[in-house]
C-alpha cells in the first residue's frame, strides 16, 4: 500500500453566523485506505464531509486533492476529477428505474447529455455495464423496478452501484450503514470492503463499533475538532474517546 496522501484538508474551518461548526481540522486520507470519520451527533462530521465535497464553502482552510488545490472548485467539477460522494439520506432518483439510476451515472462520458434530439435508445449500449454494476450489488431482480419501491438497505446498495458507475478514485460515503437492519449492515460492509480494494474510501459514521473492522484509519471528531486519530486499536483505547462515547466506547471495545 502506497503511503501518499490523496485527499488532504488543512486548517479547515466553517463558521455559520458566528457558530463554529468545524474548527481547524487537518485531515489526511491515504490512497487505497478506508478512512472513517466518526463522532457523536453535532460533532461536525457532515459539515466536514460537505466541505470536502464542495457542497459547502469553507470559511478558512484549504483542500487538496492529489496535491491540487480544490478549495474553490464546484461540486460537479470534483466529481469529474474522481471524487464522488454519497448522501446521508439515500440518494437515488426515486422515479427512475434501478437501471436508469445507474445509467445516468454512466451516460456522461458518451458526450450526448445535452442531445435532446437523440433517442433514448442511443443509451442502450450502456445497459450491459449498468446491469453488471447492478449484479455487483445484488440488485438484479430489481433492475426494472422504480428505485422508490426498493427497501431502504437496497437503496443504499443502488446508491453505491451508481457511485461505482463513475469509477471514482475516492468514494465519500455519508453514513452508508445508518438506518440499516443487521442483515443489511453485514452485506453492505462487505460491499464497501470489496469496492475499496481498488480505491480510496472516506466514510462518515456515527458509531465506532460499526467501522471498527472496516477502517484502516479512524478520525474522531468532537465539537468540530479532531479528538483522536489512528487505527481502531489506538483510537478505541484513547481515554478522551472513551469519555466522549461513554457506553458506546466500551461496547466498541467489546466488539
Amino acid at each position, binding site marked *: 500500500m502506497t503511503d501518499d496522501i490523496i485527499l488532504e484538508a488543512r486548517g479547515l474551518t466553517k463558521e455559520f453566523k458566528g457558530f463554529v461548526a468545524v474548527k481547524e481540522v487537518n485531515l489526511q486520507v491515504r490512497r487505497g485506505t478506508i478512512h472513517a470519520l466518526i463522532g457523536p451527533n453535532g460533532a461536525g462530521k457532515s459539515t466536514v464531509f460537505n466541505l470536502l465535497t464542495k457542497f459547502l464553502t469553507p470559511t478558512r482552510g484549504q483542500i487538496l486533492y492529489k496535491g491540487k488545490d480544490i478549495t474553490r472548485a464546484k461540486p*460537479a467539477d470534483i466529481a469529474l476529477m474522481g471524487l464522488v460522494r454519497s448522501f446521508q439520506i439515500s440518494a437515488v432518483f426515486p422515479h427512475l428505474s434501478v437501471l436508469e439510476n445507474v445509467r*445516468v451515472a454512466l451516460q*456522461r462520458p458518451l458526450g450526448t447529455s445535452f442531445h435532446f*434530439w437523440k*433517442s*433514448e435508445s442511443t443509451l442502450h449500449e450502456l445497459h450491459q455495464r449498468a446491469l453488471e454494476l447492478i449484479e455487483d450489488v445484488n440488485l438484479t431482480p430489481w*433492475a*426494472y423496478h422504480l428505485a422508490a419501491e426498493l427497501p431502504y438497505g437496497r437503496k443504499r446498495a443502488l446508491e453505491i452501484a451508481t457511485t461505482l458507475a463513475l469509477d471514482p478514485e475516492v468514494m465519500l460515503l455519508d453514513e452508508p450503514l445508518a438506518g440499516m437492519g443487521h442483515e443489511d449492515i453485514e452485506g453492505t460492509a462487505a460491499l464497501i470492503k470489496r469496492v475499496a480494494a481498488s480505491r480510496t474510501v472516506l466514510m462518515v459514521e456515527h458509531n465506532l463499533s460499526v467501522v471498527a473492522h472496516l477502517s484502516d484509519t479512524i478520525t474522531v471528531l468532537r465539537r468540530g475538532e479532531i479528538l483522536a486519530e489512528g487505527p481502531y486499536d489506538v483510537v478505541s483505547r484513547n481515554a478522551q474517546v472513551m469519555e466522549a462515547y461513554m457506553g458506546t466506547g466500551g461496547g466498541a471495545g467489546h466488539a
Partner: protein
Amino acid sequence: MTAASQTTNQAAPKTATVALRGPDAGTARTALLFAVGLAVAGAAPFALYPVFVMKVLCFALFACAFNLLIGFAGLLSFGHAAFFGGAAYVTAHSVKVWGLPPEAGLLLGVLAGAFLGLIFGVIAIRRQGIYFAMITLALSQMVFFMALQMKFTGGEDGIQGVPRGVLFGIFDLTQPLTMYYAVLAIFVVGFALIWRTVHSPFGQVLKAIRENEPRAISLGYRTDRYKLVAFVLSASLAGLAGGTKALVFQLASLTDVQWQMSGEVVLMTLLGGMGTLFGPVVGAGLVVTLESYLAATSLPVPVVIGAIFVVCVLLFRRGIVGEILARLPGAR
C-alpha cells in the same frame, strides 16, 4: 415514433423475463394514444368550429411547453406569458409590417421566445422554488409593460388584422381548413419535439435533476446548464404556440403577455396532469372549452374555473391524466 419503439422492443427480450414491467410498455401506449389523438384532431374541423379547435391546439402546445419545464425539470415558471405573447407580437409584426411569409414570421416568433427564455433563464435558474417563480413573474411583468409602452405593439389595441399569408408559398392559410391543418402540423411537430426531448439522453439527465438535484451534481452534472437548456427549449416552444396563435386569430394583444396567461397555463398543466405527456393537452382542451361555453352564460368564468381547479387539486392531485395513469396497471 414507430421506428423508435421497434428499436426498444429489440432490446427488450433479454430483460422481459426479469422485469415485471418492460421499459417500453409506456412507449407503445404513447404511440397508440398519439395515433388516436391525431385521428380525432384530423377529423375535428368537420364536427367542430375550426377556430375553436385551433385555439385548443395553440394552448395545448403552450401547455406542453410549460409542462416540459415543470414536469420534467421541476421548474415552476410563472412568466411563460412573456414567451407566448412576446412571440405573438414578433410574428404579427413581421408578417403584417415587414410582409414576411408566415413560416418566417413563426421562425422569428420562436427565436423571440428563445431569446427571452435565455435572458429569463440566465437570471432565474440559480434560484429554487418560489424564488424562481417570482423572478420569472417579475421579468414577465417587465415584458408586459414593454408591450404596453412600445410603439410596434400597438399598446392597448395590440396588432390587429394580421394577414395569414401563404405558407411555404403553397398553402393558402386564408382557407380555414388549410389553416387548420397547418396548425395541427405545427402542434404535431412541437409535441414530437417534446416527446423526443423527454425520451432523450438529455431528458434522462433532466429527470435525474428533477428527482434529486444534489445527487445529479455529485455525479458530475452541472445542473444549471441543463436547466437553462430546458428553459430555452420550453420558451421557444411557447413562442411557437404564441406565434401560431397570432396567425390563427390574426391578432397579438396584451392578453397574450398578461400574467393571467401565465396563470392559465399553470392551471391547464396541473388540471391535465403535470409530468405526463398528454395531460397538458387534456387540460388545455378542458379550460378552453369551459371558457368558451361559460362565455355564453352569465356565470363568472374565473370563479367557475377557479372552483373546478380547487376541486381538482383536492380530489386528484396528479391531474386528470396523471390520475388515470396511476390507476392503470404497470403505468409509470
